[in-house]
């Protein structure tokens, strides 16, 4: 009999009284708020975005100006309120996400291995709060750092770099998501049983062998899920890229590293820009906000679900 069952046994007699029902109801309402939030996000994004596309507008009984879904998802020119080719925004978002991954993944995994395998408890208790500070700095501040301090350094190496560029934005977003990669990966590594390490040492393996050959493979599902979560954070990151990446939408070749030296408009920054430019309530530009919003929401949600799935499905059970 589990403790939960014992608890149920013990509290059964008073469960129906007002004293017990009132708090229970209140706490349930609190928990329900989160469901209501999700439902309202989905309903709001879906209905407003439906009024944006010509395919779905009739379904919601909307007769105003609309945009063809193919034009939105496949064209590469973003110039509201005339052209809504979201690929221009997506290319910038992809570039920043990949760039921040290049910064955050090696550093984050290195940090996680160090904290879980090498650091003394005293060192760990100092380093972990310091890392948390990285995630605690407001993102608008990171954007300012990118423009004022990092861009000049990049311009020193590549003189053709623009005042606003994707490289500086990628670097600060990368720094910002290091703690996320590190803490989730470290949790996964700490969960690897001590026996496995002992077995490795028993076979004559060095600490290096054990860390790279035993701990990292055993924790791989957690590490990969940390990557996906951190990248979904990078995709949704708004203020740093709004300040640092520029405000001119342009379609960039995502496979060409030289794209990083140019400025572009990622999806989140485009939303901020749309809002700050005088959009008339209910107009096409206003509804395009929700079209980008639902794209963003769908991508980040899918990544969260995949990350969760990988962490659960491929977890090594011991």
């Amino acid at each position: 009999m589990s403790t939960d069952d014992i608890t149920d046994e013990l509290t059964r007699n008073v469960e129906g009284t007002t004293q017990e029902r009132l708090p229970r109801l209140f706490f349930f309402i609190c928990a329900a708020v989160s469901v209501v939030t999700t439902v309202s996000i989905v309903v709001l994004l879906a209905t407003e975005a439906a009024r944006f596309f010509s395919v779905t507008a009739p379904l919601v009984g909307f007769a105003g100006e609309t945009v063809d879904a193919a034009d939105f998802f496949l064209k590469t020119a973003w110039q509201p309120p005339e052209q809504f080719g979201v690929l221009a925004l997506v290319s910038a978002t992809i570039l920043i996400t990949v760039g921040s991954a290049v910064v955050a993944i090696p550093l984050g995994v290195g940090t996680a291995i160090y904290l879980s395998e090498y650091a003394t408890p005293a060192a760990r208790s100092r380093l972990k709060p310091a890392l948390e500070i990285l995630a605690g700095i407001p993102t608008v501040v990171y954007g300012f750092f990118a423009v004022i301090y990092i861009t000049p350094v990049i311009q020193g190496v590549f003189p053709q770099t623009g005042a606003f560029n994707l490289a500086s934005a990628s670097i600060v977003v990368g720094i910002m998501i290091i703690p996320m990669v590190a803490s989730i990966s470290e949790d996964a590594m700490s969960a690897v049983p001590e026996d496995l390490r002992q077995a490795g040492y028993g076979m004559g393996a060095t600490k290096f062998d054990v860390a790279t050959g035993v701990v990292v493979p055993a924790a791989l599902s957690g590490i990969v899920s940390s990557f996906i979560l951190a990248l979904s954070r990078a995709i949704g990151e708004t203020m740093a890229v709004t300040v640092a990446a520029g405000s001119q939408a342009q379609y960039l070749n995502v496979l060409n590293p030289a794209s990083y030296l140019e400025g572009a408009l990622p999806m989140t920054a485009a939303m901020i820009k749309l809002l700050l430019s005088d959009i008339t309530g209910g107009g096409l530009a206003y509804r395009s906000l929700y079209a980008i919003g639902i794209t963003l929401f769908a991508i980040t949600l899918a990544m969260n679900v995949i990350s969760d799935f990988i962490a659960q499905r491929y977890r090594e059970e011991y």
Partner: protein
Amino acid sequence: MSTHDFGQVSRTVGTVFRYALLAATLVGVVALGILLLFVAVDAIQPLTADPGWHLTFFLSFVLPTLVVSGYLYRRAPDSLRAGGAIVGLLAVTTMFAGGVVLIFVDIVSPITWFGFVLALALPAGVLALVSRTLSPGMGTSVGLSAALLYISLAGVPGPVGGIVGLAPIAPSVIALVGSIPVLPVDWMLLVVSVSLPVGLLAGSYVASYTDRRGGIVALGLTVALGVAASLAAPSLGISAGPSLLLATVVGVPTGLAVWRSWETNRLALALPAVVVGGAFVGAFAVEALGFAGPQSWVDWQFLTSAHSRIAEDAGLYPAIGGSILLMGAVIVLSFPFGVGAAIYMEEYAPDNRLTRLIDVNISNLAGVPSVVYGLLGLGVFVRFAGQPTGTVLVGGATLSLLILPIIIISSREAIRSVPEEMRQASYGMGATRWQTVKNVVLPRAFPGVLTGTILALGRAIGETAPLIMIGAPDVVFSLPAELSAKVSAMPLQVYAWATLYGSPAFYQKAVPAGVVVLVSVLLAMNSLAIVLRNRYQNEQ
């Protein structure tokens, strides 16, 4: 034998790997440190000060602090940590006191506050009397307290009656206090409505370590401190109200910490004494010797004036006030719901499909980009509910939704860490589920919940995107005085300076200064949370 003693055969590869990992760990932290140093130099401009100014402060402040810290580090690390905590407390309470003074000067007048405190204290008193004499059931007492609170805050029949069309019978306590023709001066009201409650808290803290007498002494000292600060204010050149608030908010917690330290570890007082003493001596010395300080952009003018088109005159005051008000709204809206949801999930929820759905839902909500929450606020609160754009209420509600999942997740962790034996012991004593939650789980989990909430508030205070989405204005020239007033916030103001007014003058002056203020507030909040958490983990 632990694993640390194995694996000693690793040679070059192992060593290189180890240091590469250490380097990877430090890269981010060091990079941020350098960036913060740069921005601090840009904002404070230490090089513009006279060399004599630096020398004086080095001799009076830096050198003694270093010597004492070094000595304590070698001889008594505990005292160094405890002393550092007191210095940190002084810094955090000073910052907090600044916010409190701002609220009382520009948002809530002392008389309104007095009425509010009275309106809360009266029902509490009546309720305590009723429950002591009649011991009513829970349903009755909840109903009674709700009715009493409504009457005292809103009057009879209040806004509900107003909607139905009833004539007012009795005004609320707040209105009653406001209508008294002759009133004592502001600082006397503050003594009753601020010093007294704070003194009661301090008294109960002291009494928990000593006895009832000690508590009464602490209460008396707190009130006396308030009165003394008000009476001494004119000779210091400030108003009585701010003086009382500063003395109470800074003095009482620091005084309590010093008192505890005096009782347990007197050596710990060396560090705060040297830091505070050195700062005062240095300040007097540079004044007397006529050395000029740095031409810092973060100065009194910056903290107390509104935005201006000229970078030198631009200030952060309305944005600071806006951030404080938003924080207030966020705490009220998110804390009860977040903790309540965490309690439901950990203590009540049956293991069924709905619970799993809520569980998955909460973790996914934590991953939704902040700009989408902004859209939610815009679509639901502004377009659907018809609220005006950019108000304190809409901003606070949007930010609350944003940090709700974070509060729920951290509160759940804190509640989960309460040992199951304690709950079982409570049930074994015949306690019900609610009694167990109220008397065992919540008190035990409270420090953890508090830590998570402070970190989540730090997140909310630094958010800009949702505020832009709900249409918060870039520039506000006065403090919002009510919930339906337009509000700006510190990060939003910094963003506006960095982009809309993105001239070199703003980039060199106002933006670094704004960043320094914003980051200082956040670092203070983060350190407070970390210190709380460490203390809490040590206790367990």
